[in-house]
């Protein structure tokens, strides 16, 4: 018997159930966020096999250490994506991955059932995010894109953009702040601890 209706449960409640080793809860977390996790890993790694490894690690980590997610601090999706990003960047920065990225391997991936309303919401949000990003001046947008999607350190970004390191460092921080403001103007309220 299990009282939790995983499809109706909030992300936070799913994580509590994961903490009690309730596998269907992890499956539901995967169903909701696995696509975004995999897409981010793939975008950074540009190759499927390592992206799949990262995706698996992210969900296995959640299974083993659900206590690391703090619902007070932000959404489960951003928590998973931050973990995904960190792991992907680690892979990018390792020598082995440089070789792997040269390989063009394709692998068939099945498509899970996906809530149509969630998909529509995702698409609408994606549009708004794109607008908010475009509204950002280039000098703030480029360093963020290079660091986040390119997996570069800020020193590498500075060298790529031929800007001083300190400038890049502060532009990334203020760019993220501006982006947040732009998103809120467009009616998207990014979660996260506000003080």
């Amino acid at each position: 018997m299990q009282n939790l209706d995983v499809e109706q449960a909030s992300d936070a409640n799913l994580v509590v159930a994961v903490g009690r080793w309730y596998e269907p809860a992890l499956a539901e977390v995967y169903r909701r966020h696995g696509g975004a996790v995999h897409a981010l890993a793939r975008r950074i790694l540009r190759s499927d096999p390592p992206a799949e490894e990262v995706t698996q690690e992210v969900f296995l980590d959640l299974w083993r250490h659900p206590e690391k997610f703090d619902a007070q601090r932000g959404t489960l999706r951003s928590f998973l994506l931050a973990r995904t990003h960190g792991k992907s960047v680690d892979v990018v920065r390792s020598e082995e991955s440089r070789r792997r990225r040269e390989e063009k391997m394709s692998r068939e991936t099945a498509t899970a059932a996906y809530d149509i309303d969630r998909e529509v919401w995702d698409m609408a949000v994606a549009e708004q995010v794109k607008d908010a990003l475009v509204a950002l001046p280039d000098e703030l947008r480029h360093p963020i894109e290079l660091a986040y999607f390119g997996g570069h350190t800020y020193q590498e970004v500075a060298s790529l953009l031929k800007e001083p390191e300190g400038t890049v460092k502060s532009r990334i921080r203020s760019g993220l702040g501006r982006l947040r403001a732009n998103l809120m103007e467009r009616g998207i309220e990014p979660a996260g601890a506000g003080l």
Partner: protein
Amino acid sequence: MSATPEMSHTEIEGLLGVYALDALDPETAARVEAHLEACVRCAAEVAQHHEVAGLLANSGGAAPTGLWDGIAAQLDGTSDLSWDRLAARLDPPDPARAAAGARPDADVVPIGASPRRRPWVSAGAGLVAAAAAVVALVFGLQAHNLHGQVDAMQSGPQLSSAERAALASPSTRRIPLAATSSAGAGATPATIVLTAAGIGFLVDDRVGGLAPLPADRTYQLWGVVGDRTISLGLLGPDPGIVPFSVAGSAAVTEFAITDEVAGGVVQTANHPVAVGAIRV
């Protein structure tokens, strides 16, 4: 890096954006992390950056189903692995055999077990006598746990208001017991509801729960405490809701249900029909 000077709050603050995007070298990132442990304000700012970055990444789309199978295969705490851990505790380690690289279960006889699972007890290990002593002496289980619960079963789920209140307490834990049969894979036919005071209820799922047994059989509940397995009581042939107590014993970490002759057994040689572990 040697003799690195302490970084000020302001210096760390300036790094929060690049830290959130993993654009720092590992040493500096570790120093930011150490600061975040103590500084709520900076931790909150990083959380905000993560939310914004998460939206940039959020391309939506469906989760690849093929990948889930790979994840599910590696989960511990699921029925198979939980049962492996149970069985591993019951198999005394044999250093000579381990050194020889033999399979640890190579010379034991599965009883009622599917071939791929490890058996409930190893043959000739003297565990039966040891476990009987444990049940009789060490844990001092109340007699009603072994013999009186058929009555509780027959009277059905009559919970007192105190029991209901205990069940509603946030400290009360629910431990799903997963089916061990391949036919029931993924199913949770029963749940243990365990209060902080050590009062537990075995709740048999009304739908897809434990299959009713003939009158000369009974389900029996077991708990694993350390490296020992103790009987927690008889559940009857068609459990419904059955109370039991683990108060007074050391912490039970895992539960298992077996199918036994009516009247129960002191130590089981049968493969469990459902198992579940408490997440510590």
